[in-house]
């Protein structure tokens, strides 16, 4: 009997987060947290090594009855859609903990506990095959983040936290409606309740009433779009990202569950949605608009972190757009965008945090000439910025190139809109880079120390990953392609 590895990577963080709560001081807390995250990382890597990327089937499945009378089961599994995202989480979290190694925070034990809890919940969303479980984890991701923002957040933390909490909660509830509908229609058809995701998705096509099929699809889509977040449901993001502490922002970035839902749930339902073409158009339009809109707004920001937040909206637009591309490679491009965005934005937010810590401001125009004082930071941040503006040889380019190129085949118009944004993207990145890193050093900051060893290490590792996967994306891309081919083959059935 082999070890229930998925349960482990989901439960260990929760377990250790409780342990962390019990710790007395910062040293213990961070040590325990690091231990947990390292264990999770090793397990994940082990799983990745034994992962067969040539099959679109669920692997490492686990099953246990939970609430039989409602057909709810504890069911885990992982495939090419979820593997990279789990990997992303497992990789970034340890380095995030290292990054915060020397931060002076009050009750750091609570802090690390929440951090681990978030990790567990997010991984849980990715690996659960049961809709009930999926939703449970989905909601659980909210709670620790809510606390994290409202305890260690910036000046407007309370407003931001509540806004984020309620806003995304509404999204999830609407999604829940869709899940209910799926669940009961399936129940009626098969006579037995069953919450298994794949089962429910497969039953969707037998819903006789076309309107309700559209509604179900829209309800689910809405839930996901809010989480991604896509224009025009993004207004919770800037506040939350900006007010959150650095680690919180990074956790938000790792919160890729919206896009995941898009691939896991929406795409399989798409072919059986009566007004499919409309839905696809909506997705493509929202995606491209988010790209352009986010870019323009990022250009308009004065606060560095806020700029990064908007750029994140812009980048996530590629996910929606690529998903709407309906070509296997465009879809996998979108998946890859999720992966790469996670890595890139982590560094971007870390840099924001460092700068804010060092200079006490994030207003771009007040900064300047930091490159002279903080060369290490400058190099890493430069790499992150370049990756984020889609410089070839880094992950961002692979994803955006795939999305744009292969989406063009089905959605030329929206790709053209998106391409316009590329210049703007370059513009705000370079502008920010010039104002913060280059130019005359603002003397009022006095002498600045460069980033500490632990920060350098953690940021550098992620940076190297960005470079590595930018040069050789196949290790994660292949499994994505395998699965997206399956997704798209479904579409082919309905003649797309």
């Amino acid at each position: 009997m082999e070890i229930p590895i998925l349960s482990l990577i989901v439960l260990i963080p929760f377990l250790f987060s409780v342990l962390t709560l019990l710790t007395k001081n910062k040293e213990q807390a961070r040590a325990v947290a690091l231990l947990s995250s390292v264990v999770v990382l090793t397990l994940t890597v082990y799983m990745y090594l034994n992962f067969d990327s040539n099959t679109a089937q669920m692997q490492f499945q686990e099953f246990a009855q939970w609430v039989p009378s409602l057909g709810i089961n504890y069911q885990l599994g992982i495939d090419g859609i979820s593997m990279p995202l789990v990997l992303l989480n497992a990789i970034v979290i340890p380095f995030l903990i290292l990054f915060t190694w020397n931060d002076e925070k009050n009750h750091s034990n609570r802090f690390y506990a929440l951090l681990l809890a978030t990790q567990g919940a997010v991984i849980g969303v990715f690996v659960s095959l049961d809709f009930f479980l999926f939703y449970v984890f989905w909601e659980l991701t909210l709670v620790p983040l809510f606390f994290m923002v409202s305890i260690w957040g910036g000046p407007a933390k309370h407003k931001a936290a509540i806004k984020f909490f309620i806003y995304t909660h509404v999204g999830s509830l609407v999604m829940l409606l869709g899940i209910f509908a799926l669940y009961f229609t399936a129940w009626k058809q098969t006579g037995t309740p069953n919450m298994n995701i794949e089962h429910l998705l497969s039953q969707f096509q037998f819903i006789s009433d076309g309107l309700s099929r559209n509604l179900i699809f829209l309800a689910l889509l809405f839930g996901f779009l809010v989480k991604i977040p896509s224009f025009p449901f993004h207004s919770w993001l800037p506040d939350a990202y900006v007010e959150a502490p650095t680690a919180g922002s990074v956790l938000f970035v790792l919160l890729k569950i919206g896009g995941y839902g898009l691939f896991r749930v929406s795409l399989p339902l798409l072919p059986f949605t009566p007004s499919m073409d409309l839905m696809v158009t909506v997705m493509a339009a929202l995606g491209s608009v988010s790209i352009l809109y986010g870019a323009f707004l990022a250009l308009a920001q004065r606060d560095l972190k806020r700029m990064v937040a908007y750029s994140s909206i812009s980048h996530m637009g590629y996910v929606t757009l690529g998903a709407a591309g309906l070509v296997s490679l465009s879809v996998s491009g979108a998946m890859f965008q999720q992966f790469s965005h996670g890595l890139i934005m982590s560094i971007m937010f870390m840099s924001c945090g460092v700068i804010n810590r060092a200079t006490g401001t994030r207003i771009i125009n007040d900064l300047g000439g930091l490159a002279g004082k903080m060369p290490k930071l400058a190099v890493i941040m430069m790499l992150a910025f370049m990756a984020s503006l889609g410089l070839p040889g880094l992950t961002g380019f692979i994803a955006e190139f795939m999305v744009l190129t292969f989406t063009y085949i089905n959605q030329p118009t929206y790709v053209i809109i998106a391409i316009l944004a590329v210049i703007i993207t370059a513009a705000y990145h370079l502008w920010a880079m010039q104002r913060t890193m280059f130019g005359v050093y603002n003397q009022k900051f006095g002498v600045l120390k460069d980033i500490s060893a632990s920060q350098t290490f953690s940021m550098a590792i992620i940076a190297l990953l960005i470079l590595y996967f930018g040069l050789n994306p196949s290790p994660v891309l292949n499994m994505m392609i395998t699965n997206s081919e399956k997704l798209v083959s479904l579409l082919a059935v309905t003649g797309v």
Partner: protein
Amino acid sequence: MVDLTLLTPELTLVGTGLVVLSIGLFLNTNAKKILSYLASLGILASLVLVLTNLGNGGMLFNETLSFDALSQFFKIVFLSVALLVSIASIKYTEGNSHTEEFYSLLIFATVGMMFVASANDLIVLFVAFELASLATYALAGFEKKNPLSLEASMKYFMIGALSAALMLFGISFIYGATGTTSIPGVAENINILLGSPIGLLSVVLMIAGLGFKIALVPFHMWAPDTYQGSPSVVSSLLAAGSKKMGFVAAFKVFMVGLIALQAEWTTAFALLAVITMTLGNIVALSQNSVKRMLAYSSVAQAGYITMSFVVMSKTALAGAILYALSHGFMKAGAFIATAAVIYMVLSEKKDSEMPDHIDNFRGLGKRMPITALCMTIFLFALAGIPLTAGYMSKFVLFASTIEAGLVWLAVIAILNSAISLFYYARVVKYMYFLSSEGEKIAEPVPYTVAMIIAAIFVLAIGFWSEPFIYWAMEAAKVLI
């Protein structure tokens, strides 16, 4: 000679009540602490008895009392709430010369509720209903030097008396039309009233009478005042216990007795449910008294449960019944936590204007960690955050509305619970994110024990829901 084994729980309770009352006469104030333990034991005993009798049902006293899954489920609800309340009250009644009265009233109220749960005849139902009501009127006014408590009980009593009259009037018509008071009997002969104004009138009167206990808008107006004014432990009994009594009565009267008039009352309940949940949630947004906020929230929750009358499916009823159970624990727990806070505040300064003001919850996370943690659990459960009882029961209940194709209702309910998140989260915010100058204090043991028990159950129902859902299903089978 009838076999009274089924009746043992009630008898035990009555016995305990009388014993407590009579012993209390001979004890001096300090010694009365025993009584509270005694009462708690008695309630526990009868709870155990109910659990042992679980499964075997039957009728008693020529079919005026029926013992079935439904009644037993609700008895469990009442008894566990009563148990929580009595444990918590150990602290509340400390050094009070009227301890025995408090506990006997508490116990008799519980007995009344239990009889309502097994009533199979309108007379029994009415009498038991009144028994519970009268006991709780007195409890609400238990602090007879405290104007707020008196005002609370006065309002409770006045509206209670009014609605009792309304209900009785309604019953009289039903009786007149059907010639019998046995609920199944009513069900057989009710057809006369189909479409007749009398039938409609009696339905509405019954709704008003029961809606008073359930606190449906617009029959709810006493509830916020009473919950706020009366002692917190009593409020928790009212919110968690007697409200459920209203539901079980309503289940019996409408789903069994007046099933033929379904058309009328479904519509009525649909209206009331929507209004109730919406108004409850919205008004709760702007409350600064936590007890009042909880009161409005329980109004809203009543609205959710009432949806089951509209859906009228097995799942819906199971959901409603499960909700009754979970709400019992959540609300009782929340009120007890508030009681603990009030205790803290009053122990610091005697004459505090509004001891349950939300500002007193500042920094509770530091001052009373256990209380704060439990309160957080209860609040999130009420808000329907997953892996809590609240989520599980909402899940079943809301899901059933979709099942029945009442999407509009589901949407309204979902949006409501989204709104509710705001005021629950607000309290959490005060407890953890706002700091206060007050220092950490020793948390009174009884309150803590009660809260922990409640919290454990709230989580248990959320995690390990299978048995509870199963019982709820069984109970629902009785009605449909």
